[in-house]
């Protein structure tokens, strides 16, 4: 009788052990959006928990059968903790990596830049998969700056830690520049407005009129020959025996003009921003 009870106890214990014996063997790698299958061992009912980025799932499973994780549940790259509990719990972590690049996040600075400025333009690109996961695996991104059909810059940069960047000087001609970051057949386009730089060789001419003096600039260009945009302020200063008179005038159609109500002999100077032009001496009324 005692032997019978002992045998029963051994069988019961073995049964318990068997029903709870479970081991999770996860796939070596998983990709975002793809299905994953996890085999289980043992027998009996168990509870499955899957906790990961964007998911927190609990369901009943049968030990010994495969656990099927749908691609829809594994869209976010990251760590998924898989727990199977019957009388005891077993767990394992499944790392899901980003799928292939689908889009580029491209940030370009600035959107408006003066011409011929060293290291004035910079851009950063991050490749993302279709589920908005950052693609960490190295990719080669091409950055191209072009105005019309001419190319200003073409540069291939390998992503490091998911990021690729470039820095470049602005071109010499004012106008719209298209900046493209591309990876295979994926591309992101940005527009960059190159504007004339500070005026160069600012020169004025002028003369006396009945009401004072009139001065005007020659057509205002920057140092690479681009016309300085209309609206740029030019400051005329007349210094004479009666003191200083200053007039600000915007450039209109490439030229700035000013009328100054002064009667004596005057020395007129001109400036725009930090650039100073020539001086003009105008005599007093006879």
């Amino acid at each position: 009788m005692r032997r019978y009870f002992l045998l029963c106890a051994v069988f019961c214990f073995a049964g318990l052990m068997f029903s709870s014996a479970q081991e999770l063997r996860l796939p070596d790698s998983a990709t975002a959006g793809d299905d994953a299958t996890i085999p289980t061992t043992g027998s009996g009912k168990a509870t499955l928990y899957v906790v990961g980025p964007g998911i927190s799932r609990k369901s009943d499973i049968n030990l010994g059968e495969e656990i099927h994780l749908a691609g829809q549940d594994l869209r976010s790259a990251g760590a998924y903790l898989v727990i199977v509990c019957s009388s005891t719990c077993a767990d394992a972590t499944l790392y899901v990596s980003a799928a292939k690049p689908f889009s580029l996040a491209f940030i370009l600075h600035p959107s408006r830049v003066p011409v011929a400025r060293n290291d004035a333009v910079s851009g950063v690109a991050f490749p993302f998969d279709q589920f908005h996961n950052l693609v960490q695996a190295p990719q080669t991104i091409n950055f191209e700056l072009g105005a019309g059909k001419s190319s200003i810059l073409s540069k291939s940069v390998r992503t490091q830690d998911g990021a690729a960047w470039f820095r470049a000087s602005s071109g010499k001609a004012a106008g719209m520049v298209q900046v493209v970051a591309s990876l295979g057949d994926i591309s992101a386009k940005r527009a960059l407005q190159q504007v004339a730089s500070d005026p160069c060789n600012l020169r004025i001419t002028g003369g006396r009129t009945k009401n004072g003096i009139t001065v005007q600039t020659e057509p205002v260009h920057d140092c690479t020959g681009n016309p300085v945009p209309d609206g740029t302020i030019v400051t005329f200063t007349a210094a004479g025996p009666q003191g200083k008179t200053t007039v600000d005038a915007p450039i209109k159609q490439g030229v700035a003009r000013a009328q100054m109500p002064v009667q004596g002999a005057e020395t007129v100077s001109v400036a725009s921003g930090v650039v100073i032009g020539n001086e003009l001496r105008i005599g007093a009324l006879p």
Partner: protein
Amino acid sequence: MRRIINSALRWAAICMLLASTFSYAADANVQVQMGEKNASPRALEPLTERAVLRDFRFAWTSMAQALEFNTVDPLQGPFEGDAKQSLKNTVLNQQRSGITQRYGDQNHRVEAVFYSPEGDVLELHDTAEYQLQIADAGKLVHDEHVVMHYVVLMTPGADRWVIRQLQAVPHF
């Protein structure tokens, strides 16, 4: 008199609770240290680094609160974009399944690996150690000290740095 004292005590308790909920230093157990490697191509200035660490710590504190108490409110502010959406989905799923996660004794060692030339994107590598507890309807089903690696993208917001991407990886 006793009623007045009781009322005062009750208000004090409510104030303390609110202060602990909304304070930046809500969880003193979240430790964040910046590694010695400096970011490139732009250097991370000391004041910026301090702000980043403060906001990173606050983000983890908020995330821990959201996942422990199954509420999305703490996620407003420190997270944006996909990171926020993903965490929101986790919380909503947890509300349905009755699961809660607790991130205890957090210790983060952070390296700034990329800081864009204009200072508008910062990439961090975070080696995080914490005690992860998962409970189902209050019953503990998982309790483990884990070391995780996270790739984090942060951008400057109006008044703070926000996390836009929080992605766990097996290693850097």
